[in-house]
């Protein structure tokens, strides 16, 4: 059984804990063991926190990586594009720049006694599902769920920057769509699919009106394609689509994180998915 350190981050455990319980159940049923990372912190967020001080950003990320490194697991698993980007990018930088690693490790050692040795395999859950679990194994688990038209939202930091992540084509990806289709839905094409939700880079915190305009344009394009549901793979995109629709008033498209969608398809109890905290009602 594959065994992964489960990185929680901030938005999932604190605002959408249903994504966490769904993820735990879904991965258990697919034969992937998730182990808690005791004392992990915020990743920290790749847009907003990296903007302030990159040394601090890398040092806190290195602490999270070092915790996973001590755990005797196959790697670290994230269910969030932001956490994935920070932990993957920082690991990449530290693995390829010995001088930088020395500098960050000095801070890390002084603060925690730990060091990062460059051995953590950082995984995004969609990529792990596609490459390790496989589309067929997912299809075999599907017990129910409706064939709905899904707007698959990849977000930005799952695939990009693609020169280091090397998961899929950043302009025309298919891995996420394939999983959604295996779960019994139809992934529909819509205008400007692949565009940012609008929340990242500190834009939601600093200029929420600008973030909302970007989200509104995506929602308009999804609506024009006649979608029934938005499926995301990042709690921050999830929050942005969920909350923005209430602010904009004219849209009512349910938003599901892929873990919740798979939970529904695998026949988990709906109570385990925490859908009642969604601000845009989910009646599926």
């Amino acid at each position: 059984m594959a065994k992964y350190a489960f990185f929680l981050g901030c938005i999932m455990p604190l605002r959408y804990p249903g994504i966490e319980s769904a993820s735990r159940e879904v991965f258990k049923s697919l034969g992937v063991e998730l182990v808690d990372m005791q004392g992990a912190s915020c990743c920290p967020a790749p847009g907003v926190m990296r903007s302030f001080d990159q040394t601090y950003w890398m040092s806190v990320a290195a602490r999270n990586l070092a915790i996973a490194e001590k755990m005797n697991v196959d790697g670290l698993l994230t269910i969030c594009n932001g956490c994935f980007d920070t932990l993957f990018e920082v690991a990449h930088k530290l693995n390829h720049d010995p001088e930088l690693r020395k500098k960050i490790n000095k801070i890390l050692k002084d603060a925690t006694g730990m060091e990062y040795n460059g051995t953590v395999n950082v995984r995004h859950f969609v990529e792990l599902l596609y490459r390790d679990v496989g589309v067929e194994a997912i299809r075999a688990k599907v017990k129910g769920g409706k064939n709905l038209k899904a707007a698959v939202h990849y977000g930005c930091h799952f695939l990009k920057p693609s020169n280091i992540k090397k998961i899929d084509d950043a302009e025309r990806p298919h891995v996420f769509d394939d999983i959604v289709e295996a779960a019994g839905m139809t992934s529909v094409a819509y205008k400007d699919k692949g565009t940012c939700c609008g929340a990242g880079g500190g834009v939601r915190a600093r200029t929420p009106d600008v973030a909302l305009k970007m989200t509104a344009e995506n929602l308009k394009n999804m609506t024009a394609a006649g979608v029934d549901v938005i499926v995301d793979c990042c709690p921050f995109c999830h929050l942005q689509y969920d909350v923005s629709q209430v602010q904009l008033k004219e849209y009512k498209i349910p938003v599901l994180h892929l873990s919740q969608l798979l939970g529904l398809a695998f026949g988990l109890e709906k109570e385990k998915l925490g859908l009642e905290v969604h601000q845009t009602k989910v009646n599926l």
Partner: protein
Amino acid sequence: MLIPFQQNPQIRRRRCVVSVSVLAEAKEPNPEFTRKVVDAGGKTVNLCFQCGTCTGSCPSGRQTAFRVRKVVRRAQLGFEEDVLPSEDLWLCTTCFTCYERCPRGVEIVDIIMALRNMAVRKGYMAEPHRKVAELISKTGHLVSLRDEDKALRTKLGLQGTPPTVFSDPKSLEEVKKIAALCGFDKLVASGGKQ
């Protein structure tokens, strides 16, 4: 009726305005600042040949007057006073679309991050951002833990307080110590200025 270009007073006036503004903006490049951008992580800044693919791809620029190409140009010329105080710098969502499409391989997001770090050190840190930074430097998370969150987590069969820094005071001390060693706590307390 068509007026010949040279006799059209509006066009003549516009040409005049453009030439004056170009003169007014004519400044000496400052290679020292450009070097600082390179050292702070924007090592590809000089590769840009201003094609504008970045601006054409930018979802934020579609909604605002933010033009990524201009930010890169100002960094390239070392126009520190134009770029660091600019609100534009903060309209990038770090979506990496420009970074992916740049025909010159300019790592645009890395340049923006380098510039933002420099802007923060000059005191350009908006209050909502300062609050977010304060939250992580004090609690280790960007989102707070409320009683209702604990209740919902328990109802879902999860540990009420997540097994993160929230559950472990020693870990929180470690994260705070990192902030102190990087000078991040002081940076946040002073609203950016150091």
